[in-house]
């Protein structure tokens, strides 16, 4: 083979390797997932405060209403701020995979909450079986886009562990949802209420799952640099 052609092939291979490596660095998007977990953590505290006020002061308290509305507002405003902040931050990195992931998560998180708020306003008032079923289905609007986004993340980043975890959780969620098992929730200061175990699992995933996903990308990014031996070309300079 001509020496020039061999060198050209070598250089193209090097350029390709370096660009692929920069595209596989997800350390910049990792804080986004940690942020999502933190927003859900804050929302969970607000939710517990709402139950506490409801248990101690009563249903009619304006605090219950404020915390109740605040729970949804914290999430939707938090997601919008996070999305806008990271859109700007990731724009300069030109990392197409991270940018694609951010768009998917932004659309699903913000979009699902817009639908949830719309859905809650459309559900008629009352306490019969049909309305209870409609209330139970509300959680599907939250979790189905998340499961889909998790699968997309696993495929885009080529991390099998994320895809496997998403698959395991989707099966577990289906079992919990169909079992219709309930558990006491918001018991601080009184009896609290009963919520479905599947709904509780969503809270766990949205807080601890998201923080774990963020840490996974952050730690993964740190380890990634050691996977390749590029000393061979750095020594030639």
């Amino acid at each position, binding site marked *: 083979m001509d020496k020039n052609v061999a060198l050209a092939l070598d250089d193209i291979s090097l350029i390709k390797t370096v*660009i692929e490596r920069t595209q596989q*660095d997800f350390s910049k998007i990792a804080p986004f997932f940690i942020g999502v977990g933190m927003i859900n953590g804050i929302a969970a505290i607000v939710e517990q405060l709402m139950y506490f006020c409801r248990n101690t002061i009563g249903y009619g308290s304006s605090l219950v209403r404020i915390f109740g509305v605040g729970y949804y507002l914290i999430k939707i405003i938090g997601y919008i701020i996070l999305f806008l902040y990271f859109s700007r931050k990731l724009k300069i*990195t*030109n990392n197409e995979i991270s940018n694609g992931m951010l768009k998917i998560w932004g659309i699903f998180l913000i979009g699902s909450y817009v639908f949830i708020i719309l859905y809650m306003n459309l559900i008629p008032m009352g306490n019969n079986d049909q309305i209870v079923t409609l209330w139970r289905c509300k959680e599907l609007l939250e979790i189905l886009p998340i499961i889909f986004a998790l699968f997309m993340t696993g495929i885009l980043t080529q991390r099998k562990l994320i895809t496997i975890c998403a698959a395991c959780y989707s099966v577990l969620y289906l079992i919990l949802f169909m079992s219709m098992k309930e558990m006491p929730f918001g018991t601080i200061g009184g009896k609290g209420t009963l919520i479905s175990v599947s709904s509780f699992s969503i809270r766990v995933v949205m807080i601890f799952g998201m923080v774990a996903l963020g840490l996974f990308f952050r730690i993964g990014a740190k380890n990634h640099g050691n996977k390749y031996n*590029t000393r061979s*070309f*750095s020594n*030639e*300079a």
Partner: protein
Amino acid sequence: MEINTIPEAFQTKLRLAVLSALLTGTKSFKELKTITSATDGNLGIQLNKLSEMEYLTIEKAFVNNKPQTTYTLTEFGRKQFKEYVELLESLLSSSE
């Protein structure tokens, strides 16, 4: 760009790796070090040379009270890189 007039910036693997990494956006010294696995001294010298040749710009700032140096590919650098890749492509297509 001709085969006999390839700029100095593309004649070493480390410089080529640095320019390829900067093609996807601004990078810090630490990031470039991770990508290239080069030593601090070697990488620093090559970055300064590329800066002297106006292929990249160097920006020094303080982030969380720590000095951070970032490197960005200039328009000239991007144009030269494109021409170099086109040269490589033409070399390969002519050999077929």
